[in-house]
Each structure stands twice: as structure tokens, then as C-alpha cells.
């Protein structure tokens, strides 16, 4: 057994906070009614759902009528992109970035296969898109721009506000995948020109299987599913009431604590990056400043990421190499390739994502363990010494 258990994979998912579970529990048993039912047990639950919608809207600077509950970030992204394309009907042009989550990237590829044109904007070495390149990419039939607010692997923040201005000026719908930023950094939809915004509760200490989609008043997509009229037909199906309540409670808590948490995590992040960079032949991936407060992504040269993860796991430390979803895959992540990493460097990348519950002791423990782990693996590596690095 490891001496300590340290979870540093909060970008993959987070524990649900006690307060959130408590808020949800009544809706499993006492308040279990179907919000569509007109009897008292149904009406009580309808009120709870609408209160949750109000809370969620408030936390984002939106109107309650602009919030739609979905089953998660993947669904919110799919509803927006496929729904906008379906609404348009005829082929058109979509602009996205080359470092989106698969739930945007793969939808775009499919839409391209269905006849739309898609521009995958390149990013710089830090993972940022360029406003100039965005401007240049726009054509008269561009109907949708989808650029994530923060990247899930390297934590880089995009210039959402500037992108929104371009989109408004050119009268193009703008969607942002805010799954990683929601609950981490303030979002004020009154100030941003965002037409659609996706988020997922389990990334900010809420439950899995529930998400939300913000749809600016007046912006429209054609729903993908049919059924009962729930969520004003945008996402029919009996509402996941405990999930909805949990999402709104988690959102409320996260937003209330956002400043403190940001400060705390940024301090931990600084300490971690400083400690990790002391290991030779280690590079920091992503933007030095414009990054999520909780994201640390480094590449240890001469070692393979999975082997590092496995070693860390045996020491009780949970981290990730690239996105959790791509861990099953063998190719190095599209994000790391897009920022220009060569294969071995991309393969040696590890994402540590901090969150609620992480302490300075966790960071100390990691920094104690990691040099040994990297060293042990480098000792085995055929490339370490031939690269002119220190001999055994």
C-alpha cells in the first residue's frame, strides 16, 4: 500500500461534495415525482427543477429560460453542433480548433463527411488560436464557430471574449465548450458574446450524467431527439431531477468559492510546476499564464507517460496522460501534436489536475515521489544516455 492517496485527476472527474449529495438525496425518495405530472408530488418536483434552473442561470449570468439540462458535456456539444447543422439544413462552413475535445472534434469531422466544410484552426505552441486566423477563415457561409474555453489536456485558455466579438460582428453563432472552465473561473454570459455554452456537472464536484447547455435567447438549433416535450423539446425525456438539483448546487458552491479556490490552486500549481521543472529534460506544456488554475501538464523526456502513470498509481497518486478518454487509445493526443510536440515528448506527457480537497501536503508528496519515478524509468530507457544525457 502507498503511504498516501493523492487524486490529481480532477479534469477527468471530481468527487461529489457532501453538500451536493445532501441536496440530491430527497429527490430519490420523498420527492421522487415526475415534474411533468400535475399532481402535488409532481408539482413540488417541478418547482425544484425550475429553482435549479434559476440558480444555474444566476451563476452564469444567464436567464433561466436560456438554461437547458442535458446528460453531460458530450450531449451539450452534440446538441449544439449537430443541432445547428440540422437547423441550417444545407451545407455550410464551421470553424473550430484543432485541440477541441473529441465531443466537438469528432462531431465536426462527421459533419464534414456529411457535406459541411470545417476549418480546424491551428494553435500556437501554447495551444492558443489566433484571432487573425479566425477572421481569415470566415467565409460567407460560415454559420458556426466552436472554440473551447479551456483545453482539457494542457489547460490553455482561449480568447473567448475576442472570439465572441468577431462572431457577433460577422453574425455567426458562437459555441464554447466550457466543460473544463465551469466552476473554475468566473463566467459572465452577460458580458460574453457566446450563443451556446456546454458544461458538465461532474467536472465541478457535481454528479456524473448531468450537464447543461446555455442557449442565448433567440439562438436556435433543431433538437436531435423527439419524445415528451421536456426541456422545451431541446432534450426530451423524464428529467434527471437529482442530477439537475446536484448540478445547480455544485455550481452554486463552486461559484461562491471561485476566487478563493483559484488563489489556492494557483499557489499549488506554482509550487508543483517549479518542483517538476527541477527534473532535468522536463518541459511544461500549455500556456505559462493563460491556463486553468488547476492544470499542470509536463513532458518528461525519455520516459513513456503510461509507465509514469503506472508508477505513480503504485505510489497512490492518480494522474492522467492526456485526456482520460484517450487513455484507452495508443496514439499520442491530438492536442499535444497540435502544439508541436514530437512523438516521444508527447508520449511522455503527464497531466496533473488539482481540485477540491488537494492540499500542499499532496503536492509535497508528489514532488517527493516523482523524481524517483522518472529516474527509475529513465534508467531503463535506451534513449536517455544516447541523447548525451548523464550516464548511470
Amino acid at each position, binding site marked *: 500500500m502507498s503511504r498516501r492517496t493523492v487524486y490529481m485527476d480532477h479534469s477527468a472527474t471530481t468527487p461529489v461534495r457532501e453538500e451536493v449529495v445532501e441536496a440530491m438525496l430527497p429527490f430519490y425518495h420523498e420527492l421522487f415525482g415526475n415534474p411533468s405530472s400535475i399532481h402535488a408530488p409532481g408539482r413540488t418536483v417541478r418547482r425544484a427543477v425550475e429553482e435549479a434552473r434559476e440558480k444555474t442561470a444566476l451563476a452564469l449570468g444567464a436567464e433561466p429560460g436560456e438554461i437547458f439540462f442535458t446528460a453531460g458535456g458530450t450531449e451539450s456539444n452534440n446538441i449544439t453542433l449537430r443541432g445547428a447543422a440540422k437547423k441550417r439544413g444545407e451545407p455550410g462552413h464551421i470553424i473550430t480548433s484543432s485541440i477541441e475535445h473529441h465531443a466537438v472534434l469528432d462531431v465536426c469531422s462527421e459533419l464534414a463527411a456529411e457535406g459541411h466544410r470545417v476549418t480546424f484552426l491551428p494553435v500556437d505552441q501554447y495551444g492558443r488560436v489566433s484571432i487573425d486566423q479566425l477572421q481569415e477563415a470566415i467565409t460567407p457561409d460560415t454559420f458556426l464557430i466552436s472554440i473551447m474555453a479551456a483545453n482539457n489536456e494542457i489547460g490553455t485558455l482561449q480568447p473567448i471574449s475576442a472570439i465572441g466579438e468577431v462572431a457577433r460582428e460577422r453574425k455567426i453563432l458562437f459555441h464554447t465548450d466550457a466543460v473544463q472552465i465551469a466552476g473554475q473561473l468566473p463566467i459572465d454570459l452577460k458580458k460574453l458574446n457566446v450563443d451556446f455554452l456546454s458544461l458538465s456537472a461532474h467536472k465541478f464536484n457535481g454528479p456524473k450524467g448531468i450537464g447543461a447547455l446555455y442557449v442565448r435567447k433567440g439562438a436556435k438549433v433543431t433538437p436531435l431527439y423527439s419524445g415528451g416535450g421536456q426541456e422545451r423539446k431541446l432534450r426530451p425525456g423524464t428529467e434527471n431531477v437529482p442530477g439537475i438539483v446536484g448540478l445547480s448546487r455544485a455550481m452554486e458552491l463552486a461559484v461562491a468559492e471561485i476566487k478563493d479556490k483559484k488563489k489556492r490552486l494557483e499557489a499549488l500549481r506554482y509550487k508543483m510546476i517549479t518542483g517538476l521543472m527541477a527534473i532535468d529534460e522536463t518541459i511544461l506544456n500549455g500556456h505559462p499564464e493563460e491556463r486553468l488554475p488547476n492544470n499542470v501538464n509536463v513532458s518528461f523526456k*525519455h*520516459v*513513456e507517460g*503510461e*509507465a509514469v502513470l*503506472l*508508477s505513480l498509481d*503504485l505510489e497512490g497518486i492518480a494522474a492522467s496522460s492526456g485526456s482520460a478518454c484517450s487513455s*484507452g487509445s*495508443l*496514439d*499520442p493526443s491530438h492536442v499535444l501534436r497540435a502544439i508541436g510536440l514530437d*512523438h*516521444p515528448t508527447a*508520449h511522455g506527457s503527464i497531466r496533473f489536475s488539482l481540485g477540491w480537497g488537494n492540499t500542499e501536503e499532496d503536492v509535497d508528496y508528489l514532488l517527493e515521489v516523482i523524481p524517483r519515478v522518472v529516474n527509475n*524509468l529513465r*534508467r*531503463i*530507457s*535506451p*534513449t536517455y544516455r544516447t541523447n548525451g544525457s548523464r550516464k*548511470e
Partner: protein
Amino acid sequence: MYNEKVVEHFCNPRNVGELLEADAIGENGSFKCGDTMKIYLKIKDDRIEDIRFQTYGCGAAIASSSMLTEMVKGLTIDDALKITNQDVADQLGGLPPLKLHCSNLAADALHNAIENFRNGKVHGESA
């Protein structure tokens, strides 16, 4: 994900390193996952007297490298050539399906080393 035996070999890999006076060196790399492996052999009377490896790769790659070196140490090169990637995986008590190809490095690198030896060279073309 990995069974105990794999983890044990990953944590305590046998026969790690180089042999400075190797009779043959074999190499193998997977373009798909970027793994690379190097095998160093000391051969006496057609028998593998000593063996070392270096591996850049995932847990499965490292564990199967370690296991292979254990399996072939002391064998004649004819017998060593009979060892397949599957044998290594089996000896490890199995590997996750997605990771099977990572374990393919090891036996292939050994075969490469033996081939070089039979061709009268220490290194192959690529070195």
C-alpha cells in the same frame, strides 16, 4: 489493469541495462505507440550466457522485456528463437488486449539480436 506478475516485473525489472561487450545487439521499435527496445546478448557456444535490455515504453512493454530476458537466459539461441511474443504474454499471466502489441517488442528485438549474431554482426543495419 495489469495483473500482479506484470506489475512486479514492471517495478523490479530483471536484467536492465547494457552489456558493454555484447556479442549482439537487437533493436525493435513500434511506430504506432513510439515504444523502442534494445537487447544486448552475450553468447557462448550458441547459448545465451547473459542478457540485458533497455526499453522506452509503457508498463506492458517494460514488463514483457523483463520477462523475456528471464525466459531466455541460459537457452541455446535455437531454443530462444522459438519463444514468441505470445509466450512472453502468457508467462506474464496475460495482458490487456489493447496492450498486447506493446509486448510484441521484446521477442522481436531478441530475434533481431540473434539474426545480427548469425550474420556475424553486433549491430543491425539501423544502428
